[in-house]
């Protein structure tokens, strides 16, 4: 398999007492590699251009990632940090966590609770 499936979910209204305006949720599944990472970059770029300063990337369905995939996540983090109050949060599974540890980049990311460490 050499593909990543991506979905987008925007929340512009408060939910469960939490203000979620400006939050974008991206859900990825499959491989996040050199061949598919440009899609993630485009989605994050789109979210930033639409004023979403906070992005949650759900990687629970990702089955593998290479250096290009991790670089795309790092660039997403940089793009968002360039925004006032911008943040990137990853919801990762064991495969993703192992790749982030192997590449020694895990400390660079904010991981959501429940992440498969």
């Amino acid at each position, binding site marked *: 398999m050499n593909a990543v499936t991506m979905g987008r979910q925007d929340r512009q209204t408060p939910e469960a007492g939490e203000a979620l305006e400006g939050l974008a949720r991206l859900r990825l599944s499959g491989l996040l590699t050199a061949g598919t990472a*440009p899609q993630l970059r485009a989605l994050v770029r789109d979210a930033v251009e639409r004023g979403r300063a906070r992005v949650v990337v759900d990687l629970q369905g990702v089955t593998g990632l290479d250096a290009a995939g991790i670089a795309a996540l790092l660039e997403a983090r940089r793009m968002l940090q360039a925004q006032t109050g911008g943040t990137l949060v990853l919801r990762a599974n064991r495969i993703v966590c192992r790749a982030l540890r192997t590449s020694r980049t895990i400390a660079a990311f904010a991981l959501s609770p429940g992440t498969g460490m």
Partner: protein
Amino acid sequence: MDTPSGSHPRPAERGVVISRGTRVYLRTMTPQDLDHLSTWVDDPFLERMVGSEFMHAYKHVWDKAPAFYEAILTDPTQVALVVEAYQGWTKPVGVVRLFNIHLLEGYAFLETIIADLRAMKRGFGIEAGKLISYYGVDVLGLRRLEAKVYEYNVLSMNSLRRNGFRQEGILRQAGFDGERYWDLMIFGILRDEIEAVRRRDKVYLPLDPSEGNGREPT
């Protein structure tokens, strides 16, 4: 509710084109590429000239197992791309890769393997090295690349110099070819120097919209 996007094309079976030059282009690996790799790793000339850990691992550690493809594809410390020449070539001519990638520190190692003997001395290796260097800077955010070459591999040393690499040192008698020890020459290049090569050569070509480069063409 998630909305799976159907607008993104699935990577082609022939791999996703990552970068294009005037003589060669680079694409992602496919499982079928292992057939070529299987032939290349049995070439004693290549083994002596390149001494590639990548090829050594496929032959001796993985015993040419198909699972090697998945392992390479999902290795978070490397990006391995297949080198294809444009005209008159029906098979890939080699592999180029960045390995031991340190994304936060911004450095990696470069290995260029032109495996088809007929493809040598045509500038394919120079351009493949150049394209993946640009990829390293533009997409991976690297600021330094390093390469090692056996002292007798003059062709590779000249290719690196043509691409702006500088010799930074010598690892004395660090290589062994089965008969004797050889020096390893260390080459390096920094981001500014890669940019200088890009301004000089202008080999980068814009990709089609369906192709998979993360960088906006300039």
